[in-house]
C-alpha cells in the first residue's frame, strides 16, 4: 500500500485503522487519518510536489510543516493549500499548481537556461520596453507563469467565514513545553488563558522527540486540558499584535467555518513560538530529497514515513544529531554524517527529480537519495517586532534574541534561549506567573478607575518582580552558506548569486535588496530566508550581521483568507413597526442608510397621483425624531438652526435648516413646540444619528450650563404621513380631542390627541408632498393598529399606501430639496436658496462667520427649478449643465422625474449664478451626448407655488 510507511512509531499521530482514498494529479492514493497531504504522498513515494515560481525547478518536501515553501497544492476548487499542514480528508482531489502543462514536463523549466535574464530586478529590467508590448505580450505570458492555484468563480464550497471576539487575561502564542508551562502557571494564578498552537496538537518539538519527551508532553497536555481556566486553540495562528495587545488569531478547521478570525484583547501576551529551522545555502539545495532535520524527524516520528534510503546528514546541533538516530531507527542508511561544528560541509547536490550525488566539503562525491540539513535556527520574532521590539543578533548563538519588550508582552522558550525540557517548562511557568500578575493588576486598576464598572474583587495582587533566570545561549556555529551558491528564497526563486549581484548594483541595504530581488516577499514571508539573506549581504559587504539588521516583520505572521477578514457582517438593519405589513403587501424594499423602507407597492406613479387626487399614507418612521426638554431648548435651537426660534408659541411648528461650522448645509426638518419646555425636533432620515450626536456635543462640551435633555425617539414613535385633499375627511373619522378645522388647526401647527383610540399621538400639519397633510406620530406598539384603521376607514375615500419613490416625485413637483441630494458637501447656505431664512444678526449660530462670508460672495452656485423645453425628456440626476456647445460646466441636475401631475419632466439643479434668473436658458448635456435646452423657473415649486393645496 504505502511503500515508505514504517512500522508503528511511539509518537505517531496516524490512525492505521482508517484508509482515506484521495487523488494526486488524477491518480488514486490512500493515507490514514492524521496524515497531512504531504505525509500521505511521501508514504506513497511521491518526491516532486511542485515547480518553483521563476525557474520551474522541481521541488519536494523541505520542512514538512505549515511553512514549507514547496508544498502549495490545489485541493478541488481551493487554491494554495499548504500540503505540509493540511490534514488529509477522504475524497480530496489534490493536484500540483504552478505547472504548465504538467508537473513532469513544464515548459517554463527552460527558464533555467535563460536564468541570467530572470536574475535580480528582472521585472524592472526585462519588461519595460517597448511599452506597448506590455499589454500585448508580457502580461499574457507572465500570467501563464504566475504562481498560485486556480480560483473557481462559480463555486463557493468553502462555507461561511466567521469572527469572534475574546478577552483573555493572558494569551499564549505557542503550545510547546514553554507555552504550556506558561498557560498552566497563568491559569493557576487566577488568569483566564487562551493558548494558541498552530500545529493540530499541543507539544511543539516534544511531539517528534524521544520517550522522555513524549512522557513530559503527556503530563503537560493533561494539565492544560484539565484546567478550566485555559481555552486551547490548535491549528490556529497568532497572526498579529497591535496596540494595547489587540491580537489577531486565525483559527483554521473550525467546525462551523473554514477559517475564523478571533479578535482578542489580552491583558498580557506570552510569545512562545519556539524556533524555525533554517535552510543552508549550497548548490542544489532545493533538489527534492534535501530536507531539514526537523522535516525528517516529523516524517519518521509523527507519520511513520521513511524519508529516503541513503542519507547524507550535515549537523551543527543536537537536533541534527537526533535526526541521525531517528534515521537509523527508520532503517535509513547513513552514507555520511557530517559535523558542521568540526568544519565538515556539503558543497553541491546533483540530481533533478531527486537527490543523486552529493559533493562533500572534503572533495568526495557520494551517492544518496536524501540530504538532511541541521545547521541552525531562526527566531520567529514577528510578534515581538510588532510590539515595538528590535531583536538583536548574537553571533555566539547564531540567531536573534529579544531586546526591549513592553510590560504586557513577555517572551519564553526557545526564542529566548536554550535549555533542557525541564528548564523550558520552568521558564514558561515563571513567565506565565508574571504575565498573569501584570494582567490581573491591570484589570484591577481599570475596574477601580471607572465609576460604573464592576468593583474589583478583593485587594489588588501584589506586583511581582521579574526574577526569571534567563535561558542559556548555547554556542552555535554560524552556518549560512557553503562555498557554493544556492537558493536563499525558495518561494521566490532568489539565489545567493542574485543577492550578491544586487549588492554589487548598489542595492546593498537589506531593505533595498528585499525590494529589488523580492527576497522574503513570497508566501514564506521571511521565516526561512531572512537570516540567510542578511548573512549573504554581510558576507558580500564584509560586515557584521549585527550591522546588517533584518527586514521588518509586519503582520500578518501567516496568510489570512480575505473571506475570514470579511467574516460575518454585524451591521444591524432597522425596520419600522410597519415593515412586516409593507412586505406582506408587495412593497419593493429600499435600503436607505440603516433602514429598509417600502420604495413602492407596485406602481409609484399611480400612488403619487392618488395623493394628489384622494388620500395616501406613507410610513416615514426613519425621519429622525428628538424629544427636547428643558428651559434652555430655545437657546439650543437658536444655536443649531440658521433661523430664529425665540417666538415659537406652544402648538406651533417651524421649518429650520442647519449648517455646520464650515457653513455647509447639513440638515433640515421641522420642530414643534409641544409645551412650555418641551419640543419635538425632526431631522432628515440619514442625518438622524449625526444630529443627535452633534446636539449632545454642543450641550456637553460647549454649553454644559444649558439645561436641555435630548432623547432620541426615532424608533419609539412610528411616523405616518397622511396626505391628499381628502385626508382631513379621513382623520375626522379617527381623531378625538383635536379640532381639525382649518381655522383651529392651521398649517404648521401641532396638536396632541387620540388617533384610532390610541392616546398621546402627536399630530402636526406640514407637507413635504405639497398637499394638505398631517403627520401622525404614534407610539410604535400601536402603529399597526393605527395604520390599518386609516386604511379601513379610508376605503371609500380611495386611500392607498405610497412609498418613498412616490414621495420623491411629489416633493420634487413641490420643489422641496433634499439635503445630500440637491445639496452636497460644498453647498453653502446661500446656494440652497434659503434667502431670508438665514439670520446673520444672531449673536451665535453654527458657522456664523462662514455664513457672513458666503453671503458676501456672488459666485456661489444657486439651486433652481428647471424644466426641459422638450417635456418628454427626463435628464438623469447628475447630468451636467454646460456652456452651449463647449464643455465648460455651469452646473448640474440634482433631481429629476417625470411629473404625473404636470405630464412633463421636472428638475432641480445647481447652476452658475449667471443662469439663476427665472427664464434663463440652460444647456443640459445628456449621458448619450445630446445637448438639450431647459428653462429656469421662477419658483422651486413646479406644482402649486402659491401653496393653496397645502394650506387648504
Amino acid at each position: 500500500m504505502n511503500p515508505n510507511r514504517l512500522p508503528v512509531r511511539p509518537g505517531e499521530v496516524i490512525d492505521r485503522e482508517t484508509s482515506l482514498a484521495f487523488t494526486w494529479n488524477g491518480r488514486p492514493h490512500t493515507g490514514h487519518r492524521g496524515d497531512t497531504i504531504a505525509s500521505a504522498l511521501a508514504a506513497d513515494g511521491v518526491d516532486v510536489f511542485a515547480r518553483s515560481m521563476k525557474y520551474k525547478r522541481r521541488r519536494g518536501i523541505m520542512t514538512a510543516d505549515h511553512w514549507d515553501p514547496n508544498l502549495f497544492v490545489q485541493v478541488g476548487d481551493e487554491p494554495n493549500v499548504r500540503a505540509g499542514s493540511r490534514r488529509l480528508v477522504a475524497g480530496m482531489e489534490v493536484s500540483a499548481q504552478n505547472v504548465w502543462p504538467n508537473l513532469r514536463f513544464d515548459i517554463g523549466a527552460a527558464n533555467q537556461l535563460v536564468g541570467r535574464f530572470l536574475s535580480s530586478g528582472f521585472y524592472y529590467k526585462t519588461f519595460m520596453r517597448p511599452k506597448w508590448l506590455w499589454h500585448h505580450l508580457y502580461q499574457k505570458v507572465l500570467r501563464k507563469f504566475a504562481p498560485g492555484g486556480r480560483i473557481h468563480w462559480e463555486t463557493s464550497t468553502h462555507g461561511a467565514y466567521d469572527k469572534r471576539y475574546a478577552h483573555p487575561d493572558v494569551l499564549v502564542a505557542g503550545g510547546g513545553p514553554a507555552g504550556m508551562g506558561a498557560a498552566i502557571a497563568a491559569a493557576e494564578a487566577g488568569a483566564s488563558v487562551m493558548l494558541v498552537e498552530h500545529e493540530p496538537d499541543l507539544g511543539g518539538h516534544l511531539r517528534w522527540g524521544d520517550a522522555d519527551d513524549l512522557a513530559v508532553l503527556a503530563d503537560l497536555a493533561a494539565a492544560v486540558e484539565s484546567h478550566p481556566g485555559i481555552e486551547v486553540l490548535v491549528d490556529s495562528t497568532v497572526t498579529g499584535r497591535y496596540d494595547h495587545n489587540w491580537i489577531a488569531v486565525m483559527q483554521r478547521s473550525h467546525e462551523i467555518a473554514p477559517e475564523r478570525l478571533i479578535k482578542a484583547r489580552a491583558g498580557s501576551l506570552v510569545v512562545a513560538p519556539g524556533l524555525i529551522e533554517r535552510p543552508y545555502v549550497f548548490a542544489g539545495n532545493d533538489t527534492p530529497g534535501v530536507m531539514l532535520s526537523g522535516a525528517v524527524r516529523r516524517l519518521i516520528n509523527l507519520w511513520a514515513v521513511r524519508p529516503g534510503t541513503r542519507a547524507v546528514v550535515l549537523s551543527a546541533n543536537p537536533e541534527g544529531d537526533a535526526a541521525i538516530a531517528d534515521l537509523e531507527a527508520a532503517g535509513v542508511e547513513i552514507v555520511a554524517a557530517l559535523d558542521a561544528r568540526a568544519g565538515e560541509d556539503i558543497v553541491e547536490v546533483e540530481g533533478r527529480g531527486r537527490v543523486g550525488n552529493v559533493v562533500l566539503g572534503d572533495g568526495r562525491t557520494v551517492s544518496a537519495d536524501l540530504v538532511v540539513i541541521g545547521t541552525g535556527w531562526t527566531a520567529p520574532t514577528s510578534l515581538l517586532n510588532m510590539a515595538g521590539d528590535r531583536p538583536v543578533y548574537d553571533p555566539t548563538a547564531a540567531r536573534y534574541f529579544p531586546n526591549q519588550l513592553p510590560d504586557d508582552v513577555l517572551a519564553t522558550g526557545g526564542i529566548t534561549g536554550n535549555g533542557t525540557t525541564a528548564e523550558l517548562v520552568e521558564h514558561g511557568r515563571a513567565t506565565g506567573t508574571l504575565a498573569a500578575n501584570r494582567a490581573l493588576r491591570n484589570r484591577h486598576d481599570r475596574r477601580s478607575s471607572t465609576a460604573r464598572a464592576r468593583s474589583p474583587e478583593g485587594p489588588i495582587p501584589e506586583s511581582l518582580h521579574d526574577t526569571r533566570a534567563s535561558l542559556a545561549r548555547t554556542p552555535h556555529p554560524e552556518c549560512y552558506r557553503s562555498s557554493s551558491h544556492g537558493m536563499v528564497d525558495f518561494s521566490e526563486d532568489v539565489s545567493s548569486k542574485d543577492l550578491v549581484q544586487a549588492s554589487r548594483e548598489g542595492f546593498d541595504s537589506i531593505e533595498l535588496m528585499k525590494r529589488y530581488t523580492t527576497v522574503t516577499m513570497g508566501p514564506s514571508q521571511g521565516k526561512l530566508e531572512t537570516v540567510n539573506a542578511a548573512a549573504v549581504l554581510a558576507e558580500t559587504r564584509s560586515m557584521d550581521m549585527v550591522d546588517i539588521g533584518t527586514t521588518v516583520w509586519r503582520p500578518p505572521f501567516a496568510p489570512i483568507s480575505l473571506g475570514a477578514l470579511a467574516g460575518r457582517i454585524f451591521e444591524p438593519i432597522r425596520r419600522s413597526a410597519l415593515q412586516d405589513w409593507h412586505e406582506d403587501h408587495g412593497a419593493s424594499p429600499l435600503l436607505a442608510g440603516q433602514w429598509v423602507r417600502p420604495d413602492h407597492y407596485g406602481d409609484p406613479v399611480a400612488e403619487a397621483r392618488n395623493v394628489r387626487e384622494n388620500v395616501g399614507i406613507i410610513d416615514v418612521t426613519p425621519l429622525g425624531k428628538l424629544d427636547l426638554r428643558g428651559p434652555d431648548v430655545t437657546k439650543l435651537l437658536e444655536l443649531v438652526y440658521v433661523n430664529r426660534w425665540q417666538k415659537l408659541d406652544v402648538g406651533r411648528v417651524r421649518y429650520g435648516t442647519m449648517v455646520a461650522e464650515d457653513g455647509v448645509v447639513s440638515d433640515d426638518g421641522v420642530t414643534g413646540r409641544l409645551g412650555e419646555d418641551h419640543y419635538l425636533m425632526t431631522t432628515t432620515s440619514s442625518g438622524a444619528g449625526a444630529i443627535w450626536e452633534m446636539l449632545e456635543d454642543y450641550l456637553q462640551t460647549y454649553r454644559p450650563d444649558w439645561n436641555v435633555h435630548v432623547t432620541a425617539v426615532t424608533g419609539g414613535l412610528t411616523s405616518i404621513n397622511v396626505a391628499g385633499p381628502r385626508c382631513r375627511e379621513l382623520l375626522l373619522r379617527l381623531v378625538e380631542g383635536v379640532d381639525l378645522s382649518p381655522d383651529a388647526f392651521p398649517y404648521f401647527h401641532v396638536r396632541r390627541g387620540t388617533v384610532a383610540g390610541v392616546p398621546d399621538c402627536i399630530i402636526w400639519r406640514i407637507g413635504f408632498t405639497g398637499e394638505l397633510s398631517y403627520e401622525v406620530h404614534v407610539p410604535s406598539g400601536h402603529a399597526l393598529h393605527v395604520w390599518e384603521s386609516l386604511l379601513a376607514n379610508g376605503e371609500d375615500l380611495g386611500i392607498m399606501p405610497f412609498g418613498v419613490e412616490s414621495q420623491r416625485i411629489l416633493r420634487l413637483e413641490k420643489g422641496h430639496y433634499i439635503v445630500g441630494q440637491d445639496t452636497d458637501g460644498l453647498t453653502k447656505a446661500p446656494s440652497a436658496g434659503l434667502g431670508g431664512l438665514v439670520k446673520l444678526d444672531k449673536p451665535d449660530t453654527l458657522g456664523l462667520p462662514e455664513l457672513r462670508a458666503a453671503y458676501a460672495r456672488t459666485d456661489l452656485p444657486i439651486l433652481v427649478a428647471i424644466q426641459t423645453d422638450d417635456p418628454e425628456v427626463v435628464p438623469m440626476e447628475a447630468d451636467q449643465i454646460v456652456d452651449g456647445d463647449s464643455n465648460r460646466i455651469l452646473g448640474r441636475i440634482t433631481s429629476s422625474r417625470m411629473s404625473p401631475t404636470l405630464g412633463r419632466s421636472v428638475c432641480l439643479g445647481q447652476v452658475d449664478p449667471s443662469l439663476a434668473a427665472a427664464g434663463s436658458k440652460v444647456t443640459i448635456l445628456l449621458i448619450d451626448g445630446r445637448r438639450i435646452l431647459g428653462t429656469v423657473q421662477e419658483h422651486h415649486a413646479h406644482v402649486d407655488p402659491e401653496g393653496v393645496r397645502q394650506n387648504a
Partner: protein
Amino acid sequence: MIVVNCPHCGPRNSSDLRPCGEVTTRPDPATASLSEWRTYLYLRENPAGWVTETWYCRSGCRRYFTIERNTATNETRSSEAS
C-alpha cells in the same frame, strides 16, 4: 485598535467610540474674523507626543470626555471628564 478608558463605562475598543480630535476652543462667532474661524475649523497642533483629545462614547454612555493620548506610542492617561 487602541483601548480608550471611558470614565463612565471603563475600557472600550476605540471602535466603540468616535474620536473627535484635539480639544479646541470655539471662538466667539459674533466677533471672530474669518481667518480666526478657519484656524479653529482646520488647524491643529498635531504633535508627536501628548495631546488632549475628545472622544464620544457612542456605543455606551453617550458622553463626550477628554483623555490624554501620546500620538507616538498610543499610551493614554486620564484627564478631567468634560
